[in-house]
């Protein structure tokens, strides 16, 4: 069993595709103009940016003037939620999101609470789904915005945007979705999905960090959240991150391929099935099959703490995560796993393994060889349950 570097944390961030790098490179030292400049350096920059905008718009069935570039998923979510709320506060003061949304959605909503808005954090079922019926029940006459994550970053659950969006449309409520994890990994079509705003970013799909986009359907009442020189049709000021935007466009071009999805799905299922077979007392979090992100695996190992498991995996060259990368800033067990109704032990024993199209078959085989032994070792030095017969203090 030879040591390998195996990167299974593509849900946190991804390697920039060398093909993407190649397309970006000229924009650093040659075509380095400011897209707002009138001269030929400005023209080149603008052309690169508009080409990327076209690729991204067409990848989701949108018009180019419905794509606003931002600095990433966090900014897009802040922008969408805070600005829609502030722009439409005459219509109502109620926002709906879910208990499994990303921290940047949840904390944007919490900020809105400090500004006098009311927020409902919806429960999910045990696989992480929100039903259209439950959503409809949560909507009140005061509701102005529903923001629900599309593909969940921890457990991979993919919500039914069409069904949820239709409920919103019926009640005249804006619908925003955070599609950072699902973008290019499952279909997103603004022609058929009643979505008003959608958050996208580049660094989850082999593009550069620090660039994202917000899709804003034509006619949506929204004002800029970051004010300044009036870039992006006055919706998002700041000198455009041209090289980043160009790289974002190319990363979408490279990623939009059913082959990649099929490949990741096969490896995902091989790894899930292999672990469930080799290791006792493991639970898969999130659904199986089509309604799970093709690159996401999330498991709870009883009697084992996730970070320690990750630490030993890292020693063997395998990069995993205990949930979202942000959780290193926070000691609480994952709010997503808890929302599924799992116990604290299950939540604390969670690891996430996220693949990419660059993950190899050998990477999966190696992981399947290494992981069971580590779990065994950790259970041996664990004071909890199953393996000993001491009465646990927490049960006392």
């Amino acid at each position, binding site marked *: 069993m030879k040591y390998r570097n195996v990167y299974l944390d593509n849900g946190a961030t991804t390697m920039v595709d060398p093909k993407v790098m190649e397309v970006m490179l000229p924009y650093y030292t040659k075509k380095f103009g400011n897209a707002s400049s009138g001269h030929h350096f400005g023209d080149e920059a603008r052309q690169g940016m508009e080409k990327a905008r076209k690729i991204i718009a067409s990848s989701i069935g949108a018009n180019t003037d419905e794509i606003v570039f931002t600095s990433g998923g966090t900014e897009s979510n802040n922008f969408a939620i805070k600005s829609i709320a502030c722009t439409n506060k005459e219509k109502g003061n109620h926002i709906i999101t879910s208990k499994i949304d990303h921290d940047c959605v949840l904390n944007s909503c919490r900020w809105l609470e400090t500004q006098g808005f009311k927020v409902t954090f919806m429960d999910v079922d045990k696989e992480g789904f929100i039903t259209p019926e439950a959503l409809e029940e949560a909507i009140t006459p005061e509701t102005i915005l529903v923001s629900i994550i599309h593909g969940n970053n921890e457990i991979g659950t993919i919500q039914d945007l069409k069904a949820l969006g239709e409920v919103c449309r019926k009640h005249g409520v804006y619908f925003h979705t955070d599609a950072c994890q699902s973008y290019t990994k499952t279909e997103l079509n603004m022609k058929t999905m009643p979505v008003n705003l959608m958050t996208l970013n580049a660094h989850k799909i082999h593009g550069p960090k620090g660039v994202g986009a917000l899709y804003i359907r034509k006619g949506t009442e929204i004002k800029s959240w970051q004010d300044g020189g009036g870039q992006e049709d006055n919706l998002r000021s700041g000198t455009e991150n041209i090289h980043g935007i160009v790289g974002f466009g190319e990363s979408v071009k490279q990623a939009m391929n059913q082959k990649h999805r099929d490949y990741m799905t096969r490896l995902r299922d091989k790894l899930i099935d292999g672990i469930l077979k080799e290791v006792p007392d493991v639970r898969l979090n999130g659904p199986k099959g089509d309604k799970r992100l093709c690159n996401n695996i999330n498991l709870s190992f009883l*009697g*084992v*703490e996730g*970070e*320690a498991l990750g*630490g*030993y995996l890292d*020693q063997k060259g395998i990069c995993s995560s205990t949930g979202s990368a942000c959780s*290193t*800033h926070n*000691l609480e*067990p994952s709010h997503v796993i808890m929302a599924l109704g799992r*116990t*604290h*032990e299950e939540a*604390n024993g969670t690891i996430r393994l996220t693949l990419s199209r660059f993950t190899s078959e050998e990477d999966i085989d190696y992981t399947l060889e290494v992981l069971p032994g580590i779990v065994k070792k950790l259970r*041996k*030095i*664990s*004071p*909890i349950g199953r393996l*000993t017969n*001491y009465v*646990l*203090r*927490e049960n006392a």
Partner: protein
Amino acid sequence: MYSEKTLNHFRNPKFAGEIKDPDAVGEQGNVKCGDMMRVYLKIEDNVIKAVRFQTYGCVAAIAASDALCKLAESKTLKEARKITYKDIVREVGGLPPIKVHCSVLGIDALKHAIDSYVKSPKNQEGKESKGK
């Protein structure tokens, strides 16, 4: 994130495991908090002759447990009581601020073990306060 010393303790915890017939056992923490430690002691003449831990917890918790055992081994009970979380943080080469609390866990588990030993009727004649 972690120092090399922390990672060494974590990767090769010399004191991980159980003592089959311990003179004292102490526990602290619980699964809800995400970390829990049990410490096993072999004691002779108020001196810790052997020490082992079992820990459910993160990298820092496991490293700190191992470090605690290293510091406690061969100490008198009185000396062992004086070990502070700062000694542990030093032994593991520092901890990220958000993880410093992990080093407190072991201190408390050790105290519980010593307390239970001292309070136990069969050890009353060899009272800790009389030990040198």
